[in-house]
């Protein structure tokens, strides 16, 4: 596999400070890229798609940082429309292997993402008849959909939703209403300006009886002139920290009527006489919702961390500051131990999460097959996995991107660095698809149940069997090199995770979740869930490294990263490992020493390790992070394109001039 043009070593104009970093790589960057893609043929396909998109000016994001909310929205709609055309031209399809690379490159900066959720929810929740009716219309974009669940006053707690749908037997219609302000739908994407239809979640009432939350397809705008339908108040919720291109919307319904057939009825139905019938198992549906949490991890969470690491590490090899040795040139900031300590653990985490993500997908694929065969045994475990890992990975990646941002000093604060947008995007993932604290508590609930079952001698799922293997003991390490042995640190993590769960003994003994008692322990419960997920992540990283091919230096460098990820975790949570004396104070000093040694080792491969992520300059869209390291020229060129430099500011004539000429009183 030949190196692609965007990272050819021969190309002129690469900053020598960055070029020199690439000469000392201990492994083959191309081979690692292929490993990350899941094979060289995937790498080839991905690059071909990226090339096709990047060569099309309609997808250019060149001026993104200078655009207003209105302009960003319009560009996203334009891109979404153009993508339809492009896909037909290229012969790409929604179900083809290309689609994930297309959306990965677009990194969400496109309209109609909720339209896809709209379609998925109809496919999953709708009857065959409903699917046959709506999906072709949506596929052809004759209608544009959204997904309206969250309300102004209610997010996490679905049962608390206040929108109502009352069945009217006389007209065979549902009457939808927003009874009060907190019941207004709030946040759904594509709804503020674009959508013609949306799936509304509302409390179903038949004959005065409430049957709980159900989904209804509601037309909200005219298909002729796009104006809101009678009884519908709809609009954009205003500027946010990011997602300026998305028209997150509000929706108020006043006596809006939809036909009986618009309630999505794969699992339940209101019959013409008002009889409520429920059939089939909702468990498959439940499984689908669970997989959404896993599906966001790769593109929305781990990728931003990889990009942030790429930008920050390349920039740190170019930026020089102060002298490490008298008389020498100023040192690269990447040579400072404090800078390495900020960035390299984030790099190790990016790799750790890449591998845990692959593991989770395999686990869910297996789970899906079992569920297809009507075996629902693994569902609680999968649910616990999806909750805990969604929470852990989003939280870790968010803080990782922010560390990268701040590690780039003043220039990181410029939008042109690309880092602020990466940060504000990734941090939204801590809230959507389940607020992280709530998710950790769900995982904790599972852990406590399993531990209770294990104590009672009942079988428990494989991922948690370690909980019943608690053996008091001490860590055997005597030398700092002992901590480079995965057995040693894995055992430490295992012990720590077991202790975190067993510390909740009193809660476990009290039988179950008496509400007050549960609330009194939630801080510790969150910690236990985190400890479990952290342990599993280290374990999967270790297992992945063991299975890697020992060619081209890849296994060795991945082993270093795995060690770093594990030891950094111990170093940063020392108290949890020292507690109970599994690790002694002296051993903790050895961990620290070993951890700091690793920083210097990985430092040598830092730039090749981010090169292996294989982001093109256009997809990074960063003046600091480009492959050629021409940071300062690019920063200067891009700044000159800023609208503030293109136009004469009206402020001068109106305010500055009188001020400067000291005619203040005339203002």
């Amino acid at each position, binding site marked *: 596999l030949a190196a692609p043009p965007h990272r050819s070593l021969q190309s002129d104009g690469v900053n020598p400070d960055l070029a020199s970093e690439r000469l000392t790589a201990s492994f083959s960057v191309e081979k690692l890229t292929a490993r990350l893609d899941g094979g060289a043929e995937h790498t080839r396909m991905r690059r071909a798609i990226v090339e096709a998109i990047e060569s099309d000016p309609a997808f250019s994001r060149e001026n993104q940082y200078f655009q207003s909310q209105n302009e960003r929205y319009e560009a996203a*709609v334009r891109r979404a*429309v153009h993508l339809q055309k492009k896909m037909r031209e290229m012969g790409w399809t929604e179900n083809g292997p290309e689609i994930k690379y297309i959306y990965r490159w677009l990194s969400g900066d496109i309209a109609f993402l909720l339209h896809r959720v709209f379609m998925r929810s109809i496919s999953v929740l709708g009857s065959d008849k409903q699917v046959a009716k709506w999906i072709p219309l949506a596929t052809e974009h004759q209608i544009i959909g959204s997904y309206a669940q969250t309300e102004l006053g209610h997010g996490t707690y679905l049962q608390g939703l206040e929108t109502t749908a009352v069945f009217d037997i006389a007209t065979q219609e549902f009457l939808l209403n927003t009874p009060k302000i907190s019941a207004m739908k709030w946040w759904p994407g594509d709804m503020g300006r*674009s959508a013609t239809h949306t799936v509304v979640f509302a409390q179903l009432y038949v004959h005065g009886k409430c049957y709980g939350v159900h989904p209804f397809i509601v037309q909200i705008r005219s298909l002729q002139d*796009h104006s809101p339908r009678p009884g519908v108040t709809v609009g954009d919720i205003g500027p946010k920290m990011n997602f300026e291109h998305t028209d997150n919307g509000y929706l108020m319904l006043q006596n809006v009527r939809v036909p009986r057939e618009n309630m999505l009825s794969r699992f339940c139905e209101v019959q013409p006489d008002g009889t409520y019938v429920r059939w089939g198992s909702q468990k498959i549906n439940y499984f689908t919702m669970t997989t959404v949490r896993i599906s966001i991890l790769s593109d929305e969470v781990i990728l931003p961390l990889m990009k942030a690491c790429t930008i920050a590490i390349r920039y740190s090899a170019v930026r020089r500051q102060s002298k490490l040795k008298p008389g020498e040139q100023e040192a690269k900031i990447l040579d400072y131990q*404090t800078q390495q300590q900020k960035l390299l653990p984030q790099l190790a985490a990016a790799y750790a999460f890449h591998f845990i993500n692959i593991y989770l997908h395999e686990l869910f694929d297996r789970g899906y097959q079992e569920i297809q065969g009507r075996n629902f045994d693994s569902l609680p475990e999968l649910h616990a996995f999806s909750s805990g890992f969604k929470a852990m990975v989003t939280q870790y990646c968010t803080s990782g991107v922010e560390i990268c941002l701040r590690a780039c000093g003043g220039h990181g604060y*410029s939008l*042109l660095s690309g880092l602020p947008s990466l940060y504000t995007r990734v941090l939204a993932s801590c809230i959507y698809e389940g607020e992280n604290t709530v998710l950790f508590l769900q995982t904790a609930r599972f852990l406590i149940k399993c531990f209770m079952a294990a104590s009672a001698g009942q079988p428990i799922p494989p991922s948690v069997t370690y909980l019943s293997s608690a053996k008091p003991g001490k860590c055997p390490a005597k030398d700092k090199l002992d901590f480079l042995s995965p057995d040693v640190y894995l055992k430490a993590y295992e012990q720590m995770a077991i202790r975190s769960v067993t510390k909740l003994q009193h809660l476990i003994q009290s039988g179950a979740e008496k509400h007050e008692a549960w609330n009194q322990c939630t801080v510790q419960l969150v910690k236990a869930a985190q400890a479990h997920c952290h342990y599993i992540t280290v374990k999967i990283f270790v297992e992945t490294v063991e299975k890697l091919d020992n060619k081209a230096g890849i296994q060795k460098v991945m082993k270093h990263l795995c060690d770093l990820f594990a030891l950094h975790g111990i170093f940063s949570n020392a*108290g949890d490992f020292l507690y109970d004396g599994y690790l002694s104070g002296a051993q903790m000093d050895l961990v620290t020493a070993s951890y700091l040694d690793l920083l210097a080792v990985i430092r040598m491969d830092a730039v090749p390790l981010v090169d292996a992520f294989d982001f093109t300059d256009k997809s990074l869209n960063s003046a600091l992070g480009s492959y050629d390291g021409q940071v300062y020229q690019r920063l200067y060129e891009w700044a000159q394109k800023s609208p503030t430099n293109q136009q004469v500011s009206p402020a001068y004539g109106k305010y500055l001039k009188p001020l400067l*000429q000291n005619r203040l009183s005339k203002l």
Partner: protein
Amino acid sequence: VRFLFSSALSPEALVINDPDFQHEDLNFLSRSQRYEQAIRKSSLMVMKLREHGIADPDEIYWFKSFVHRGRPEPLDLHLGMFLPTLLTQATPEQQDRFFMPAWNLEIIGTYAQTEMGHGTHLRGLETTATYDPATQEFILNSPTVTSIKWWPGGLGKTSNHAIVLAQLYTQGQCKGLHAFIVPIRQLGTHEPLPGITVGDIGPKFGYDEMDNGYLKMDNFRIPRENMLMKYAQVEPDGTYVKPLNDKLTYGTMVFIRSIIVGDSARSLSRACTIAIRYSAVRHQSELKAGEPEPQILDYQTQQYKLFPLLATAYAFHFVGAYIKDTYRRISGDIIEGDLSELPELHALTAGLKAFTSWTANAGIEECRMACGGHGYSRCSGLPDIYVTFTPSCTYEGENTVMMLQTARFLVKSYTQVSSGQRVTGMVSYLNDLSRQRIQPQHVAARPVTVRINDPISLVEAYKARAARLVEAAAKNLQAELNHRKSKEDAWNRTSVDLVRASEAHCHYVIVKLFTAKLSEISNAAVRAVMTELCLLYALYGISKNTGDFLQAGILTDTQVNQVNQHVKELLAIIRPNAVALVDSFDFHDVHLGSVLGRYDGNVYENMFEWAKKSPLNKTEVHESFHKHLKPMQAKL
């Protein structure tokens, strides 16, 4: 609690009710519009200050902070750096030429130090000022791309002068960095002068209303008299006269960093106010089956996120006040030429600047996250507080570099103690180390009998932790020095330890100052609630750093459990006072700029009102429908 905060004058009548200072919600304006609004308000402000005869610096500060609602504005550098630098570094003759025009805003100046390639390491700046005795001028040049001045506020569009820091060359020798007054735009037309390239550096995370700028100079000549010559001088023939004392600049740095510590406290207080008020309004899920959804502030996890931050905000208020007072107290000595206390204060404020800004930065984000999805909307005000505050981790001394400056002082003090000298001030705990030296190993692990209900005892625990980490860092540094030749290399290889030592030292200082403050509070009820907050601050800090306390043998496993338990008890104790404690910060709604944090708690109605004003809602059908959607539907 109100009396803890001084409010010099009530600017509400003067500013908030003044129709001239009203404008559309800034969240809906573009960068150019925000810049224009800021300039408009600054111009008005100058006029009104004169009209009202306001001249006292504190009163100007309050007035300004109400006009701009605590936000940056393009004249910040003129008022905060250009004018003060003229006062401290210009000769009387230069003051005659520049000060009054600048005071009257005929000259608007900025302070151009940072370059594209150089920030922290001042000696690395590349801009040159070469003296030409033939014409008695300095020739200013930006010799490389990296030497372009980059970031100065007000430089991009507003200023017509800049104080430029450049390497001085005279008689063929480099004399290091000096400051020069450089005209950059034509008076009257505001066009850049020949030889000057100047502009705005483009969009940033925040600071939308600030025209941070770039400046490139090509053989630009200024008269000899434009070098600020109160200290160093260049005589007409090019002879260089050295300045007398460098340490004086310490004073300014201490002052600016004390302002950042105060900023950390204020920004975190604002975030806490919003998050705690909103958590009292928001209801969610069930705590007990069948009961109404509880306020989210009743959840332990929510209290655990917010109350330690509330305690932190109070702690930082006291620390900020302490530094300001200390600075005032010793600035008299400085004028008298007694600089003995300055090095310690300088070292301490470096670390405290870093410690408080890092903590506040993370705390603001935690508050935002605690508000769920709505925290992400700009109507919450939290995104804005964050993006405005976060650069303070970088400017006026990058935080890691600041921590290492404090570490240098700590190591120096440790070395003094090791060689038998005694040290004074905040580091005096290091003296105890030598007394314990007679005991074999783990010198810092002197058994501290920690009473976890007693703040004074907790101060001792923090002291022991700081001593242990300073000693460990100093010993590791020595070990590296024994192995290697270069001092710089050894220092670099110990820097992670050194930063940890500084953090522990700063943490100790904060707990100590907070505890000391308690006895000054005369009102018993206020003292009681402040004691709870102080305990929470100290205990939470321990629970987050149990490794340090366990490893040094300061606390046992059982005590760690007690600490965790007591933190949870304090959350419940503080809960009834939580809203009152943020009300005491006394932020006006206009200043808070948050729909979620409104004093009246009418959150949802006002979110809807706010959203209706969004730019995307200007027309009922957005133009994109006609331009893109309709044609697509027609074609498909």
